[in-house]
């Protein structure tokens, strides 16, 4: 494996798809690249929890990794009771060095305490 210069893998997670299965955003930015993730999912394929995807990737790409929560829309639209079951297992992964989140910032002031908790 070419990991000579590797320090930390960067795993980018489609949080909105995990919560809603589709693109959800309060903005319609003209520069948004919605093709960040593949959009057409064959109907017969069943979803798996994101944490399992991360663990699988980490088996093949061993070592430390950082998690970047982004994906199809604005992650802070996800209510806490829906967000916590997705994100909490991620925070317990041994090789995870950091978790970051991409947001348009509109809800951040109101949700920053939830995020930290």
């Amino acid at each position, binding site marked *: 494996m070419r990991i000579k210069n590797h320090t930390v*893998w*960067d795993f*980018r997670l489609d949080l909105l798809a995990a919560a809603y299965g589709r693109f959800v955003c309060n903005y*319609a*930015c003209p520069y948004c*690249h919605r093709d960040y993730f593949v959009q057409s999912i064959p109907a017969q394929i069943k*979803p798996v929890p994101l944490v399992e995807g991360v663990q699988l990737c980490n088996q093949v790409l061993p070592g430390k990794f950082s998690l970047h929560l982004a994906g199809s829309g604005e992650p802070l639209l996800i209510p806490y009771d829906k967000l916590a079951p997705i994100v909490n297992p991620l925070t317990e992964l041994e090789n995870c060095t950091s978790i970051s989140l991409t947001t*348009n*910032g509109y809800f951040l002031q109101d949700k920053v305490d939830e995020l930290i908790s």
Partner: protein
Amino acid sequence: MSIPTLSPDKYEKIMNIDNGRAELCIAKTIAGIEAARDKGLDVDLNVCVSYDIVEEIEAFIDLSAKYAVPIKLFPIISRHNQPRHENNNYFQKLLTHLFSIRSPQIDFSGRYIKIIWEASSGAKLIFKPGDFENRPVECYECAYFDLCEESCWESVRISPWYIQPCGIRTDNIYWFADNNLQELSTKLSGGGKSNAAPCHQYSLNSKPRTRHFNPFKKPFIVFEGADGSGKSHISQLIAKELDYLIYKTPPEMFRNQAIMNLIENEQNLLARYHYYLSAMHYANIEVNALLNYSGVVCDRWIDSTQIYHKLLLGESMPNINPSDWILSPDLIIVLDVDESTQKSRLLERGNGFDKIWETNTDFQKALLNEYGNLTGENVVHIDNNNAIENTINRIKEAISQHVFKK
């Protein structure tokens, strides 16, 4: 976090929202930054430049300093095979402005080159000159995948249904339903996570790639010529005309007068040569990176380094062949002048950096001769003894013929 502008008027236009809502959105974003920083969270602010924000760049710098938030500048990313977004001219305008007001620092420490403008206030503007605008269909088609933000060595997309080993390739998805670790391993390799084919051919240890491998690279035009031939003035005019970035070698950070005082004498000419080669190594990486975004007009390139030191060192010139590693321009325009024109131009300007050789008549004569003999497939000579309008017209013809009709 992201925000495209700090101006409510522009915000309304960019985001296509109702009158009055823009101010609220901007205020909410800034309040979000403040709240996150208050709680000790690190924040990066992404600014996708989709409008003319040159006038508000100082406001962004103030915002960056106030909250200790680095600002990352991006052009609009086009979909694969779509034309460059017309509003990306605004991004080019902003870059040109930033280069004109301050020399950036180049950070080579990470996987991706970063061009950083840092102010004493702590404000930080960052531009990663990857090939954002033109995403190739598959990474092995891209000569600059190692600069690419969407790919490749470290980043993996994970959704509830699949793993996407490379952010660009859509032919290389691993579906969880495949349920086969070997398959995942193969796909991760094919997405650039190992030395496996096809990406092995672009080992970072191999010789730097030349621009002809990358069909998306913008033109690189170099002006060469003896001192007083008019390069600086004319290269600026042409850069403005073409709306390209202007670049000058040696780059700003190598214009160090203290070092020049040490090496600018006959005892240290070899050190001088190596110093200039170091500068060209640096310039090579910087120009390569910039060409991913914009055309570049350059005042002197490697031929000047070679010609000067061939004359200064004579037979002591080491046998070094920079063409092994340096970018070959699309067009090298040599401005030819005769001795009297050169003399009068040199008299008009004072001595400055790197100018002690300008007063040496024999050296200047030899320089004129050497530049006059410069040849190559990509070299054209333009007489610059007469009216500047004539010179400019002939340069435009040469560029049109050699660069745009290729």
